């Protein structure tokens, strides 16, 4: 298979997978939150077990402090 065709297939596969991801992402976001789950926060002790300081939840915790 020539390099050009491989490149086209790679782009098609990537775009298709990105498309599927975006569809599921939007569907997840659009699904209404169950009652009582509107203000869910990261649990301090749960996050203490994780060393990833780049995680959005850890960052939020730091900002609040």
């Amino acid at each position: 298979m020539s390099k050009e065709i491989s490149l086209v297939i790679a782009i098609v596969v990537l775009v298709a997978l990105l498309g599927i991801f975006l569809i599921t992402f939007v569907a997840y976001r659009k699904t209404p939150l169950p009652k009582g789950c509107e203000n869910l926060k990261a649990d301090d002790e749960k996050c203490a077990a994780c060393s990833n300081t780049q995680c959005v939840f850890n960052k939020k915790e730091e900002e609040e402090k």
Partner: protein
Amino acid sequence: MNIFISFVLAIISSMLIDNVVLSRFYGICPFLGVSRKVNSSLGMGVAVVFVIMLATVICWPLYNFILVPAGIAFMDTVAYILVIASIVQLVGLFIKKYSPSLYKSLGIYLPLITTNCAVLGVAQSNTDQGLSFLNSIANAMGTSIGFLLIIVTFSCIRVRLESSNTPKAFKGLPIALICAALMAIALVGLQGLFSGIKL
């Protein structure tokens, strides 16, 4: 019959002897983060089982029938991440809609299944080792059930540890990690279990 026996042995082997958490050290984050309550650990374990199984069923044909014939096998990691992320969104959507209590206990940690290296690790090892579809399914089933088994067992231990008289310096994560180490040692004892079996 031999195929069935090797299928079962592969499941048991990847479930206990080569356990994903305690032997390969994948998925440590949810193992420590979501193991304080039995219900939430069970929910996380079942969600991971579903994601790993579905990811294997999709990733294996994607690699063998599209990426390899097209000469773009180097794209496997990117493709797997996108597949896994999509499946996680889908699982999250169903939990959000049909199981509010589970959503409340897993909540914001649910999307983190995407970054659970156990899921990507299984998909990657299936293709790297050149496993057949059946063996990939066995590997995925064993790995994911092993994850479920260990996380639920660990949460049961942690629940009991909370009410036990632990020295102050060991309270919380230190004693939990010691227990995890003991569990790992227990599983090491199973090595060589199937060495005498001839197929």
